């Protein structure tokens, strides 16, 4: 047997990332070629292919084996290749640079011990370079080598190196990553990959492969606390075996172990491997194993076995950094499948605290209500049942999790803090469609515009006209009218204080629901009491619905003289007890958002004021105006 084979050593995984067209695949192809790691017929096939199609030979063809990739010259999914160099075995993970393939980049990068970030020296740092660097930071990859590719295009200039070196240092520092290796090279001409380059006599560092040899292979987590998530419980014969992998620490026969989150305890009776004679007394981190307990306690998949003196965290509320991959954005309050180690449950995001723009690495302002595909964010989430876990900085395997939507992974993240479980206000999100998505679909935002005022002050007239004008401007509006409500939903209610309060509560809840569906809701209700209107506002605002109070103001005499519904007449005959403005008070709003004086201004003027107030609040952009062409726009005469 050959002794020069570094076969027994751990494979060193390196992910190659960077902006599309910066030469990643070419660099990998070149490394394989130079280290003589390409089978002969693969070389020949690539050369023959290029000759047949009369194109220049490209090292990238050695990698990009898929049809589409050859024709489009891009990497669709992750490719992994092995090579040996200087007594070390490397696995290169080639991640695609295109934005739409980000999920593939992550699928590859999560396995890496180190990363090579490829930058086209003639172009500089690209958007994807930043995005990839940010993800590497998020995935906990600390060893980053920057390969300044195509350095021939900047004529091997030391000045160019200085500028690029500065830019890279700044980028990585922003992400709290060390920037120890910035290597000028050319994949195409093979400069500074294995051998020092003649053109780079001023460069003081090592060539690329020598740099990779010098990187650390991560220490094995045997000395960390024991974490043994149960994968399954086997009952193949008389024995009951708990199967799983020791993710960190070590486990010994005979010792006392505790299960989290349940808190149950037992002793390890035996460790069972196959063939039976290979069963050990001690199992170390990284090994898949199966154990038998002293006493048969009921535990199932998901529990994490640990030692009592170094327990994991058990909590329901967490502060975490996440990246989102789902086609549908992450919606506040919506239920997602949550997985951490072998635990599975439901998690909801309660707060989005930061969303980071990959272009600038700055926070988006104002903080968005959703996290879109390919964005990174910091959030607070809550799980439906207590979860056993660790902070990512302490134990990686039990400090990271995924969110899934309809059985497909939609995002992943790392736990930064566990929070005391205090009752944060929960957004009872049920819908998987976010407010932003609805607004985009309709072309406008939603909201509740609450019109309060005496009977006859003009609420119904104004709101009906307003509904019509908004509709013709492409804004889907709907009026909730007091009479309509009383004829249906509130049929069972009378007019005493208690029932009036309940009527307003029902109106507010209905308005909120309609607004959540995306509509602009106009409520026309006398709603005489300040307290009830405040209550209506809080019903809407606690669910994130825009609420504006509009005071439709006319003196009682004017209202009486108008008396459109003959209510004042009926009241004067004693048919209506507790008529607002007569024998029941009206409390004018102390702090309304819009005040209309309908006795002094024409309906048209009031409508203009209403439109000037409402439209800017709900319109997304003027180009969303739709010509419905159903009727003449009644606003045209205004």
């Amino acid at each position: 047997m050959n002794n020069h084979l570094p076969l027994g050593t751990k494979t060193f995984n390196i992910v190659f990332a960077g902006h599309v067209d910066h030469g990643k695949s070419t660099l990998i192809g070149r490394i394989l070629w130079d280290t003589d790691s390409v089978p002969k017929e693969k070389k020949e096939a690539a050369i023959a292919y290029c000759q047949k199609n009369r194109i220049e030979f490209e090292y990238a063809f050695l990698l990009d084996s898929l049809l589409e990739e050859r024709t489009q010259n891009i990497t669709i999914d992750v490719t992994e290749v092995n090579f040996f160099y200087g007594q070390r075995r490397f696995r290169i993970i080639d991640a695609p640079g295109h934005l739409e393939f980000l999920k593939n980049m992550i699928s590859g990068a999560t396995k890496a011990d180190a990363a090579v970030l490829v930058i086209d020296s003639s172009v500089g740092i690209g958007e994807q370079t930043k995005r990839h660097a940010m993800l590497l930071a998020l995935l906990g990859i600390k060893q980053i080598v920057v390969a300044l590719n195509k350095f021939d295009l900047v004529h091997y200039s030391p000045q160019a190196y200085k500028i690029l070196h500065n830019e890279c240092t700044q980028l990585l520092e922003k992400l709290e990553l060390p920037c120890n290796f910035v290597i000028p090279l050319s994949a195409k001409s093979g400069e500074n990959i294995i051998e020092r380059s003649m053109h780079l006599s001023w460069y003081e560092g090592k060539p690329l492969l020598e740099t990779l040899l010098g990187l650390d292979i991560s220490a094995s987590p045997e000395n960390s606390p024991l974490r043994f998530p149960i994968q399954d419980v086997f009952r193949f014969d008389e024995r009951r075996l708990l199967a799983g992998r020791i993710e960190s620490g070590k486990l010994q026969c005979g010792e006392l172990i505790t299960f989290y989150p349940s808190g149950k305890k037992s002793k390890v009776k035996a460790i069972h491997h196959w063939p039976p004679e290979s069963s050990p007394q001690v199992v170390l981190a990284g090994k898949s194993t199966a154990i038998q307990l002293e006493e048969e306690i009921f535990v199932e998949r998901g529990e994490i076995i640990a030692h009592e003196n170094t327990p994991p965290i058990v909590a329901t509320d967490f502060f975490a950094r996440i990246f989102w991959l789902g086609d549908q954005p992450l919606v506040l309050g919506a239920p997602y499948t949550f997985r951490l180690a072998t635990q599975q449950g439901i998690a909801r995001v309660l707060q989005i605290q930061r969303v980071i723009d990959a272009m600038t690495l700055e926070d988006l302002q104002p903080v968005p209500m959703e996290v879109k595909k390919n964005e990174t964010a910091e959030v607070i989430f809550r799980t439906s049942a207590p979860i056993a876990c660790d902070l990512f900085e302490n134990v990686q395997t039990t400090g990271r999790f995924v969110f899934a939507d309809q059985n497909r992974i939609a995002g992943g993240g790392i736990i930064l803090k566990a929070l005391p479980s205090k009752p944060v206000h929960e957004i009872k999100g049920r819908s998987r469609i976010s407010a932003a998505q609805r607004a985009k679909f309709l072309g406008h935002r939603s909201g509740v515009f609450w019109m309060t005022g005496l009977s006859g002050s003009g609420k119904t007239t104004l709101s009906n006209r307003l509904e019509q004008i908004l509709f013709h401007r492409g804004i889907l509006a709907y009026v909730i009218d007091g009479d309509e409500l009383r004829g249906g939903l509130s049929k069972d209610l009378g007019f005493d204080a208690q029932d009036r309060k309940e009527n307003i509560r029902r109106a507010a809840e209905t308005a909120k629901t309609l607004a959540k569906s995306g509509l602009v809701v106009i409520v026309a209700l006398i709603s005489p009491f300040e307290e009830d209107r405040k209550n209506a506002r809080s019903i809407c605002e606690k669910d994130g619905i825009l609420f504006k109070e509009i005071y439709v103001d006319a003196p009682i005499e004017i209202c009486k003289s108008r008396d459109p519904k003959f209510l004042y007449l009926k009241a004067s005959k004693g048919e209506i007890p507790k008529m607002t403005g007569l024998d029941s008070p009206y409390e004018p709003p102390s702090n309304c958002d819009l005040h209309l004086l309908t006795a002094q201004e024409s309906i048209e003027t009031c409508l203009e004021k209403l439109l000037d107030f409402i439209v800017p609040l709900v319109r997304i952009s003027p180009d969303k105006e739709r010509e419905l062409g159903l009727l003449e726009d009644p606003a045209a005469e205004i």
Partner: protein
Amino acid sequence: MQNLDNLESQSIFIFREARYAFKNLAMLWSMGKDSNVLLWLAKKAFCGHIPFPVIHIDTTYEFPQMLEFRSWAKEYYGFELIVKINQEAIERGISYKTHDPVTVTHELKTVALKQALEEYKWDGLITGIRRDEDGVRAKERYFSPRNQSMEWEYKNQPPEFWNLFLATLPNNGHVRIQPLLDWTELDIWLYIKRENIPIPSLYFSKNGKRYRSLGCWPITHPVPSNASTIDEIIEELYHTKTSERAGRAQDHAEPNAMQKLRAKGFL
């Protein structure tokens, strides 16, 4: 041998995840070296048991030594064996004498597997493919969904990371579970040596030739080699500059043959 320990542990982990996730699981087995490593790892994962049926897709072009090995292994390991032949295609006269290798492979392997899936309704299918075998297989996932027509949507694979697998089951489709994805040809041999795993004799040199990869006899060619022990094979592989599947005609019958085969459901 830290490297082999890591590979072994990860494969066992995947086996156990698969058994937990799928109600109706089966494992493909071709009697070749990778298949036998797969079998060995299954025994390790389930503490000496193989808790699902083992499927052999029989093309009727198997080497006689392989069929012998099949009967022996069934006794030795004591698993439930299902042998599946696409009888309909053979009756239609599909053969290597009259058809090209891609067509025959498709009919006798892929279509046979399709028939077996329809018959047994497996939702999870364990296979022994490896990333280093082929540029197209390099892009695979551990848990790889296939639709009802067994097609592989390689352009839109679900994300997979941190070993947090979700068994995304397409409608009436199944998921391929691939525990050997990270293993190289060399790893397979080092592991066979370390664990002393039984394999067919065709891999060892006879008269200056040996098989590196095994398939149907009419389209599988031996390579020149004097490696007659596992140590010699390992030494040979370390120096070789030809690829493992060079002797497998269906891979090279036309440009991108493997990709076309795989997109239609071939392993």
